[in-house]
Each structure stands twice: as C-alpha cells, then as structure tokens.
C-alpha cells in the first residue's frame, strides 16, 4: 500500500487516482497555488480529515454534500457512498450543504455543477474511497491508542469494536491527526454492502416534512429588504425610461433602482415590493423578438427544414439510396413547444455586502458561478464572496442559470442594503430561460425483413449553449469583459449555425437504433429567446419524435412494437435487454376494455428506460391510468430513490405531454401562472410501477432518464385508442 502524508490535498488527489483516475482538485482560476481554506464549520474540537467529513467530539459525523440537493436525493445518495465505506449509517449523519471550494468539483464537469444526472456516477468511487481511507486512519489510531493490532478491531456505525467494547470514532481523532494515511484503503466488495443498494429512507425527509429545511426563500438576515424587478414583456428588451413616482409613495418602499434586466422595487416586505412594482410605468425598447408569434416561430423552423442547409452530423452510409430501396418508408414532422421549468420555489437570492465582503444565500445548480459573478458586480475580491448553499425548491435545469444573482448583487450595491430578490411566478413563467422549441422531421426506411435501413432526421430550433456561455463565462473568467463575453456567445451561435451541431439540439434523435444509413441535419434558428437546459435537455423533445416514428414504422411494417424495437437495437444490448424485459411485462398485462397500452424506450444519461403507458380516451380527454417503467441504471445506490426519480420524471414528463406549452404573441409569452400553464395534479397522476434491472455495472443517471419515454408512450397508446397519430406536443386530440 502507498502511504502519503495526511495532507488534505494529497489525500484527495491520491484518493482520486485510486478511485479510477477521477479528476479531483481542478482549480477553476488556475492562478492560485495555495489551496483555499475549506469552507467548513469551525466547531470546537471537530476533526476535519478532508473536505467532506468532520468528526465532532460528541461523535456526530458531519457530511458536506458537494452536489446541489434539488429533490433528486443526492444528499442521501452521496452520504450513502461515504457512509458505506466509513461504516456510518447515512441517516445518523449530520448533513451540510457544501459551499464553494475546488475539492467540491463535480469530477465529470471540472467545476461545481449539478446536472446531467451525473452525481452518483461521478462520485461513486471517489466518495467511497474518501470513506474507506478515513475509516482506515481511525482504525490505525484506535489500534495505537488501545495497544492492540489493527486486525483485532472492526467498526460498527461510527464505533470501533474490540471484543465487547465499543469506542466512538471521536475518541481516536487526536491520534489520527498525527498519523499518515493510507491513500488506497481497499473498498468493500459489492456483496458486503450494508447501505448501498438497500432500501433506505431519505436523510432530508424529516426536515422537509416539518418546514425546517431552509430554502433560499427562507433566509432572513437582519436589515434585509425585499426586491421585485419589473421586467420587460419581451425577453431581453431594455428599459428606455421609467416613472416610479407612484410606487415610491407606497407603504414600505425604500428604493427604486434600474438594473440590467429591468427596474427593481425595494421594500421592507415582499408584499409591499410586489404591490409597488405594479405601479411602475416603464417604456421598453423594441427588439427583433417583438415580431415573433408561436405561428411565425414554427413557420421559420419549417422553412429552415425545407431549405435543409444546416450542419450534417452524423452522415453515415448513403441515406438517399437506402431510402429508395426500402420496402416501407415513412416521413413525419414532430413539434415540441417552448416550456418553462416552473420549480415550486420561485428563483430567489439573498445578497449582503459589507465593505469588501459579500455573503450570498441561494439554492443553485452551479455554485462555481457565485464568487465570480458577485465579485464582478460588487467589485470585491472573489475570495471575499462567502456562498451559503440552500436546499433547492426544484431545479430541473432552471437553477443552472445565475442571472438572478447578478440582479440581487446589483440591487444590493445600488441600495447599500441586504437584499432578497424574489422572482414572482409570473416572472418565472414569462421570462425564461426556456426549454427550446423544436420542429423535427424524420424520414425512415425499413427493408423486407423489418430491419431499419435508413434514418434521415432533421431538427430546427434554437441552441442552448450560447446562453450557457453568456451566463457562466463572466462567472468563471473574471478577466473577460462584458463585451468579450457577448462576443464569445455570438461566435458560438455562428459556429453552431454553420459548423458543428450543439450536442443538446439533436441528442437522442438518432443514437438508439441500428440503421446503417444515418443522416442528421441541424438547422439553428435563433429568435433571441433565452434558452437553457430543461430536465433531460434535448431528449425531452427528440425521444418523442424518435419513438413516435419507430412506432409508426412498426405499425406500417406490420410488426408488433416490441419485436420491431428488439430487432433493431441489437447494437445496444443494454437498451435491447430493457426493451425485452418491458415487453415481457407488457405481454402479461390485461388492461380493461377501453384502455390501451403504448410503448416507448430511450437511452439518456447513460441509462436505458422503457415505459408502458395504459391510456384511455374518454369524452375527448386523454387519461393515463398506469405507467410501468423498466430501467437499467447499473448499481442502484438507493433503489427507493431510483423509483422516486422515475416517478418524478414520468409526472414531470406527463405535464409536458398533456399540458405543457408556452406561446408567443408579439414576442411576449402569453401564459403567466398555473391557471394557464397547468401542472399535473394528484387526481390526474397515474399509478406508477418501477422495475429496476440489476446489471451490476457502476451507477448511471436517474434524475432525467425517466422523462423522455413518457410522451411517446402516451402518444402511441392514443394511436391505438383513436387511430390518431398526434405529432405535436402537448398531445391534443383532433
């Protein structure tokens, strides 16, 4: 075994190597050589062996969760990984939400970000190694203190065991701090797991059931004032002038200041700020988006598809000749509209600036963005920005965009007051950033054996990467001026329009099936709408097009939908197996008269999922009674949370499938709140059964992959029920 000095930095780096080459310790700025101090609690007598763990004198084991908890259960999942090897029950740990530090980066991203259903996959070996190394050190210290050989000792949930005696880990931390650490303590074999793969509850459930979990909106600091921003009806329009004289006379109002995105009204309470904001008259500039409606946007996409002069990737084989030789060919067009994420907690942030220091409280998916953005706006050193992560009241991609932090900091600077900025629900639904709309055309051919031989797919719509650059570059690169940031974003737009497809624009449109002749063409059409990731990103649209077309082809070829999929996914054995297992379940189902089963399968975020929707159409209304979900996500670290994520992805996807659409009129979003942007409610929520295939591989994603198959599964069932192929989302019967 290697031994190294028990320096925290080297401990982690060595752990990372032992953990399979995961990159830990990536420095964002690249310009500081000394590691920043760990942003952990300075509890008296606490031992901090690394960035993730503290052992307190009363034997409390404190765990710092590096990924953002937005409901996906990552506090439970990551504490289970470290607890498995440390031998501490995750439900007995004290869970803290980590601040910003290089040791907390997502090994998949090289920065502190939570998304892409990556957390468990990315930290699976790293955090287990952290737990194993720490336990080995405690055992070595215990052996020395007790005067017995290490192999005479075992552990049990935070205690060292010697014969009948139990000693708390905390008893040995003084000695542990003097020892060298084993960098590659052996990890447990899967057969010895006591927490991973077992049914466990959630570490955050009691706090979240008693109103004691602190979300960003719950933060309350002395002297805090509340801000609401009057925003343009059309995205990104700037205020030309405004009249706040009426608002300023209203009760509680202390300040009205212009910020980059609109006019901020500041008051002693949120209610006062919100009421006063209605009394600010603003003249907005005209922008190009003013002339865009839903119909014109879609017509622009259709024209781009007709022109067909986009970026081709991939372009394998000879699609044109394969199509001409096919026995069955079909062509169809599919539409997915603009969507809002609408997390239940509206976006918000608290910013307090005192001299050269700032404190920031918010729940955010990209904590790495916080110090850079706040220091840039407040003109203070990056290292003086103290970030306090909160629970996220839903993320779904929305909390990856940090523009509200810029606004809150601008208002705090302008007023000199601690500020809580709150987006109203109307702001949330109307201002974006949105899930991009997509118009997709697929032309496909099948030979006489029922084999897919040609797949010619095209998508027109906006790309999300340019806006990602706009929001994150100023945070990550303090030397970049605003003009340069905009320049880079504009160059990226030009690049995606002409040279390379933005991956999230076509992901999921072509990868799952075996078609030797494949062409994907992408036409970027940019209307300057703010766009971003939305749960399952490109897959949320492309799976609908792909799985609807597959179903249409199977029907046209006279092959049942499961057999057709099995025949054409032999190159993707894990997806093939998921389809096979789901097909076996479907064959045993006996839906009541008037109920029909629709099938869909999709690979996303390294995970394979098939879903069967039991649907009826009654009085012109689509009702989804039951959904059966079969998935392979490798090792399920917490099977109950895997089930919960499938349930959640299905319900979120059903809202989109049955209701979700934002419409544009003269550039403005016409929907505003839950009365006209409806969300699926309990009385419409189906029974959901989740079947997890244990394939024994390392964990793959679960936060997003449950969503993509549900819309096509429902649409394919509606076809059986009515004979109507619904190719527009949301699904509306003719």
């Amino acid at each position: 075994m290697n031994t190294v000095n028990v320096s925290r930095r080297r401990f982690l780096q060595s752990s990372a190597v032992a953990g399979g080459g995961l990159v830990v310790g990536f420095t964002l700025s690249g310009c500081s050589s000394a590691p920043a101090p760990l942003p952990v609690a300075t509890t008296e007598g606490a031992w901090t062996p690394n960035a993730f763990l503290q052992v307190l004198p009363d034997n409390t084991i404190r765990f710092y969760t590096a990924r953002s908890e937005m409901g996906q259960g990552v506090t439970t999942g990551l504490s289970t990984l470290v607890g498995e090897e440390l031998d501490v029950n995750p439900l007995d740990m004290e869970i803290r939400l980590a601040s910003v530090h290089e040791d907390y980066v997502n090994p998949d991203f090289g920065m502190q970000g939570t998304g892409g259903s990556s957390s468990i996959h990315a930290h699976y070996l790293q955090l287990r190694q952290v737990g194993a190394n720490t336990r080995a050190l405690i055992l070595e210290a215990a052996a020395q203190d007790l005067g017995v050989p290490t192999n005479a000792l075992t552990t049990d949930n935070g205690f060292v065991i010697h014969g009948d005696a139990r000693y708390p880990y905390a008893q040995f931390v003084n000695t542990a701090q003097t020892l060298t650490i084993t960098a590659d303590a052996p990890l447990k074999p899967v057969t010895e797991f006591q927490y991973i793969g077992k049914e466990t509850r959630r570490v955050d459930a009691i706090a979240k059931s008693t109103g004691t979990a602190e979300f960003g909106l719950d933060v309350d600091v002395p002297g805090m004032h509340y801000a609401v921003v009057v925003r343009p009806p059309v995205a990104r329009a700037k205020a030309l002038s405004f009249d706040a004289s009426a608002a300023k006379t209203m009760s509680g109002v202390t300040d009205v200041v212009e910020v980059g995105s609109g006019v901020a009204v500041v008051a002693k309470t949120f209610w006062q700020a919100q009421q006063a904001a209605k009394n600010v008259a603003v003249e907005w500039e005209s922008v190009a988006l003013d002339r865009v409606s839903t119909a014109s946007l879609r017509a622009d996409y259709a024209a781009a598809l007709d022109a067909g002069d986009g970026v081709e990737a991939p372009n394998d084989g000879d699609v044109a000749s394969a199509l001409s030789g096919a026995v069955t060919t079909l062509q169809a067009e599919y539409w997915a509209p603009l969507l809002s994420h609408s997390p239940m907690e509206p976006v918000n942030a608290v910013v307090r600036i005192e001299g050269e220091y700032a404190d920031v409280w918010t729940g955010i998916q990209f904590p790495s963005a916080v110090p850079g953005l706040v220091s840039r706006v407040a003109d203070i050193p990056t290292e003086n920005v103290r970030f306090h992560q909160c629970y996220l009241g839903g993320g779904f991609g929305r909390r990856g965009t940090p523009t509200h932090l810029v606004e809150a900091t601008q208002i705090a600077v302008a007023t000199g007051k601690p500020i809580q900025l709150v987006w109203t629900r109307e702001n949330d639904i109307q201002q974006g950033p949105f899930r991009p709309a997509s118009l997709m055309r697929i032309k496909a051919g099948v030979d006489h054996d029922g084999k897919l031989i040609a797949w010619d797919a095209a998508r027109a719509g906006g790309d999300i990467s340019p806006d990602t650059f706009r929001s994150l570059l100023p945070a990550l690169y303090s030397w970049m001026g605003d003009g340069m940031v905009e320049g880079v974003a504009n160059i990226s737009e030009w690049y995606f329009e002409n040279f390379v497809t933005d991956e999230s624009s076509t992901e999921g449109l072509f990868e799952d099936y075996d078609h030797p002749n494949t062409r994907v063409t992408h036409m970027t059409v940019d209307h300057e709408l703010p766009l971003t990731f939305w749960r399952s990103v490109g897959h949320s649209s492309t799976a609908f097009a792909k799985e609807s077309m597959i179903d249409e082809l199977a029907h046209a070829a006279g092959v049942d939908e499961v057999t057709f999929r099995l025949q054409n996914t032999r190159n993707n054995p894990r997806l093939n197996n998921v389809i096979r297992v789901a097909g076996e379940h479907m064959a045993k189902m006996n839906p009541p008269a008037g109920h029909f089963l629709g099938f869909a399968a999709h690979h996303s975020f390294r995970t394979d999922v098939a879903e069967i929707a039991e649907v009826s159409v009654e009085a012109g209304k689509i009702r989804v009674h039951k959904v059966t979900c079969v998935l392979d996500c490798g090792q399920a670290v917490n099977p109950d949370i895997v089930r919960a994520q499938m349930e959640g992805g299905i319900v979120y996807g059903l809202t989109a499938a049955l209701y979700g659409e934002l419409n544009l009129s003269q550039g403005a979003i016409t929907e505003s709140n839950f009365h006209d942007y409806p969300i699926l409610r309990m009385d419409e929520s189906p029974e959901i059964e989740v079947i997890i295939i244990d394939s024994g591989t390392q964990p793959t994603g679960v936060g997003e992959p449950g969503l993509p198959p549900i819309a096509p599964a429902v649409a394919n069932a509606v076809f059986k029920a009515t004979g109507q192929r619904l190719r527009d989302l949301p699904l509306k019967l003719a």
Partner: protein
Amino acid sequence: MIEFTLNEQQVSTDVSPDTPLLWVVRDNFKLKGSKFGCGAGLCGACTMHIDGVAIKTCVTPVAAVAGKSVTTIEGLGTPDDLHPLQAAWHEYAVPQCGYCQSGQIMAAAALLESNPNPSGADIDAAMSGNICRCGCYPRIKRAIQSVSESALAYDATVTTGGQA
C-alpha cells in the same frame, strides 16, 4: 391592530389589513415553513389551517383571520415530536425537493381531521389543489392512506397479534 391565534399563541399585527396571511406569518412572525409558490391560490404551497380548515393563505388577507385560530406546519409537529403524517412522509420517503410538502401535509391533515378514512377518490379531491412539481403524488397518497384510521387500526392489530 389585528389579533389572532398562531400555533396556539395569541399574536397581533399592525400590518396593512390586505396583506396576505402568508407574508405576515413568514416576514413578521418569521415562521418560514409555509411557502410562496404562485401568489394566486393555485398551487397550495402556502396552505395553513384556519379554524381547522385548509386554506391557501397567499390570497387570504390577514384581516380575514382576526379572532381566528391559525395553524402552520410548525404548529402541526416538530422534528422531535412528529405528527403521524410527518412520520409517514419520512417512512415513505415522500419529499423530493420538499418545497411543496408543508402545504401538502397541511392539506392532508385537514382531510384526515374531517374524514379519517378517505377513499382514493377522497384523497384526490382533497389534494388536487396542491401542486408537486417533483411528482411525489403516488407517495403522498400512500402516506396519507397509511395513517388513515383503518390503516392504523390494522397496524395495531398486527402489532398486538389481535384480530381485525
């Protein structure tokens, strides 16, 4: 001056009488468990009990609760003294992001007060005013059913080995 009972304590406030109860409870009395979701009575995140009835408080002026009894999630139970529904929420791993759950639990508690043995349809009807964006509905339903009177009676017979 408006006086009312908040979690069994007499309180008074001199805020503008049209201020929604939600904001008085959150900003003036600093109880942050009840949430702001829509501001229009559409999502239920702000649900509290007013004289035992589940009410959406983001659209309820504080003047309307003068002399009445208001219970929030903090008054229902605490981490050390959980209400049976809160214990069931833990047992069935109901919450995901958790933001809507205070409102969900308050709506469920009011339902069980008035109907200790709700049917599935009763639960749907009582709970469909509360949106959960994470999609916890199947678990919310299961958790409510687990603390219905008949389920608890069944549990008691199983525990004591008696007969139903």
